[in-house]
């Protein structure tokens, strides 16, 4: 097996080779062909896609109490217990790992279980990320990373009166697969990979904003790996910016015996197609969790939004029906940067744009017989439906095409709805991710 591998370090911008020297009537030079292959390696190294996001969402009161714990009664968050606040899914951009950045206020008081009672266990808190990557082969690997948060020094772990004076930044610099060093490991986990992530609070967290996003690291491919889309050539090693192999004249592949497929005209076309299919934005990362959710600091999982309505109601407002451009929603305007040519031909799709997406909904139901539908709608004529077919919470997927418009400035508004199609109980939605997915077989 021959592996090709390079680091994405130092790639800060795309490269745009001049087209002029490549057109007819110009002298053919290997260096110009090399520049094109090197440039094709750059788009894959530019990801900062936000996979998960938890914030205050406009709330301005902490769920962690400021006062003294009531002796023998659980009034403050239990120390050491994970409380899930968000669950998301993504098709990982090849060669990317995860990073967490969070703005927090000093953590508050916790309590410990001493059998029949509770005692104060001090102001403390931590954020934890649990990630499970799934390869196309169905192999999985996991990684958990946590970061301790600064603790309140005020009496009873109270929050500061003026939080603007006390904001702290915490990071988890890398969340990557458990084994991620050999060529085979890196090739496996930078190939065609999906990831499920959860973000949890531990203890008396006071989180203003937490963003879990992709960051480019390194990429490896085995030379005859056709199962994963080659979204880049891996032309230069050890980094994208390094010296690449010498080519004397254009080949279909860099070596005719197939041991080095990185360069050549065939690979140029394959990489272009693969980028169109495989690279695209993460558009929506939604959690229904709010700081004021009913069970406060005691529940270990996100409280879902629920409905028993047989007609569509809005995901965050059960009294609202119908797509309404005057009401709140998400924007996916920047998804227009990933518009594919065939779907957005300039003759037919003038002043308009859409992209293929997967809508992933983590949902369940109250009763075994319940079935429902979640609809993500981007225009009166554009939506994707996801069927919910089981009681136990699980990821349910839908594929379709959502209107993005032409880009920022061309307004995009996305709203989500859900309903119960059959059964007697509530349909429950715990989280949702929406991401670009071209015509390829996704991992999930």
């Amino acid at each position: 097996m021959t592996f090709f591998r390079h680091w994405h370090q130092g790639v800060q911008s795309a490269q745009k080779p001049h087209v002029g020297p490549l057109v007819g009537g110009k002298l053919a030079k290997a260096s110009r062909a090399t520049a094109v292959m090197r440039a094709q390696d750059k788009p894959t190294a530019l990801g900062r896609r936000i996979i998960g996001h938890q914030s205050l969402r406009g709330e301005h009161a902490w769920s962690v109490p400021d006062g003294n714990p009531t002796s023998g009664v659980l009034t403050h968050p239990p120390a050491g217990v994970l409380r899930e606040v968000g669950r998301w899914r993504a098709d990982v951009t090849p060669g990317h790992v995860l990073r967490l950045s969070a703005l927090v206020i000093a953590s508050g008081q916790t309590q410990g279980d001493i059998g029949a009672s509770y005692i104060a266990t001090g102001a403390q808190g931590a954020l934890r990320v649990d990630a499970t990557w799934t390869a196309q082969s169905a192999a999985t690997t996991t990684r958990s990373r946590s970061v301790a948060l600064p603790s309140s020094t005020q009496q009873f772990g109270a929050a500061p009166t003026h939080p603007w004076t006390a904001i702290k930044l915490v990071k988890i610099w890398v969340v990557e697969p458990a084994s991620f060093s050999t060529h085979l490991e890196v090739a496996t986990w930078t190939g065609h990979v999906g990831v499920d992530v959860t973000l949890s609070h531990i203890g008396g967290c006071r989180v203003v904003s937490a963003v879990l996003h992709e960051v480019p690291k390194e990429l490896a491919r085995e030379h005859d790996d056709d199962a994963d889309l080659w979204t880049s050539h891996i032309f230069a090693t050890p980094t994208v910016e390094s010296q690449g192999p010498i080519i004397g004249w254009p080949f279909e592949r860099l070596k005719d015996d197939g041991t080095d497929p990185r360069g050549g005209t065939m690979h140029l076309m394959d990489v272009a197609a693969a980028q169109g299919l495989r690279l695209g934005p993460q558009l929506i990362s939604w959690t229904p969790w709010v700081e004021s959710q009913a069970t406060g600091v005691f529940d270990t999982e996100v409280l879902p939004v629920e409905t028993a309505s047989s007609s569509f109601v809005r995901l965050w407002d059960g009294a609202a029906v119908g797509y309404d451009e005057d009401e709140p929603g998400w924007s996916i305007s920047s998804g227009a940067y990933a518009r594919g040519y065939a779907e957005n031909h300039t003759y037919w799709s003038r002043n308009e744009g859409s992209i293929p997406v997967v809508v992933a909904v983590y949902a369940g139901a109250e009763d075994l017989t319940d079935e429902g539908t979640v609809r993500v709608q981007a225009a009166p004529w554009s939506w994707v439906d996801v069927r919910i077919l089981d009681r136990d919470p699980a990821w349910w997927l839908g594929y379709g095409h959502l209107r993005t418009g032409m880009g920022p400035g061309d307004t995009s508004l996305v709203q989500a709805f859900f309903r119960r199609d059959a059964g007697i109980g509530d349909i429950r939605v715990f989280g949702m991710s929406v991401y670009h997915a071209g015509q390829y077989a996704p991992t999930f």
Partner: protein
Amino acid sequence: MAEWGSPWGAATPTLWGAGGSILPDPTFPMGVTGPDIVFFGESETGDWTELATNLSGYPSGDFTAGAGWIYVDPFDRAAGTGGTFSFEAVCRFNRDDVCHLMLWDDVYIRIDTQDIVVEAGGGAQTYTIESCSGAREVFLVTWSMEPNPLTTGAADLMRSEVWIYNYDDDAWEGFMWTHALATMSNAAELIVGASSIAGADAWVDEIYAVRIGRYFHASSENRTVFVEEPSTPTLHGVDRLEWPVPTSDSGLGNDGEFAGPVYAMAAKHTHSQDMRLHGPLVNVIGSGAWSDESTWTTPDHDDANYQLHLETLERVPVPPGCNRVHVRAHVQVNGTVRFKAWVGNGPGYLSKPAPTPAAITVDQTTVAVTVAAAHGTGDTGGQWIDLDVLFVEPDGDGYIYVVLLAFDFVPVSTWRWRAWNVEPLLDTTQDVIGGGGGFG
């Protein structure tokens, strides 16, 4: 009543198919060798002879006009026996009609009283058209079929979308489902307006226009073509659309072919790929809390009337190539409130009780948007405001801070943010600052 569109009049540009597929079934004819799109007919009066006339610009001949239907036998103009397919028709019917709209081999679409029935790959789907009444009304009926990326086997190898637009009611409906690979043989006839060449199940009313294709048409495109072309938007920053490159199975990159065109096209392609990983930086649905009650505020250093609200503060990574962000917010106001957004790269606001301009490395606030309204205090209501475009310069780790500001102009106002989003963009008339934040 909206007028149905007349999209043709110029020769159809050549397409290279649907962009290829790596789905494992080799029967997908993604390397379509025949004309990719075939157009038939346009008539304000539903004249069948006119409808049978090929207006596509391809020299592939006309359909044969029947007494109330049109057909071609065999329909050999689209290569392959399965894969992608699309059919669109502008037609008139009511809820009493029972007739065929189109049939080709084992795929068909027909009207059966108020239902529309579509069959592909052996399974029929029935959908009740809500906007179909006793009145004769004009509808756009579109059907697009493509490989199902979420397939679990032969039974759901394909997916289809049917969208129905009622021109009289300006109402959209649609449904989608998965099914097996459909049989669409080059040797079979294709009939529009009946289920046989002899005219069985003939269309009761008029068919004004038909388009038949071999690649997937998204609903947004069909709406543009047949219903309404959006006006040209005023975009913030650059526009990006993938530059077309043939797939390698076209043979263009083979040994013996000129290499130059491939290199030139691939070079051009990279120009369109630099922002395709960009997605929304902030995409928040508010919890419902009333923002006027917040005490988590601090004054803006440029104008102390404006308060920054901590409950909207975000620190987000800036993708390389982004040098501006576009901010929109949905607000619900009772009174008069002025809104702004602030973007900065330094923690100046984040460490001092009284922030000073010197503590902030780079920052900018938008021009204020004033909202004077009585939106009420219910769970619905409010309006979107455009907070325009802000300069960004990320910090060393590649992040910016974003926060919303408000000037409660009439202090008795009640108001809240119900949603806000921040989108990256590239303004090429301005400097481009690197995103940072990698492993370099």
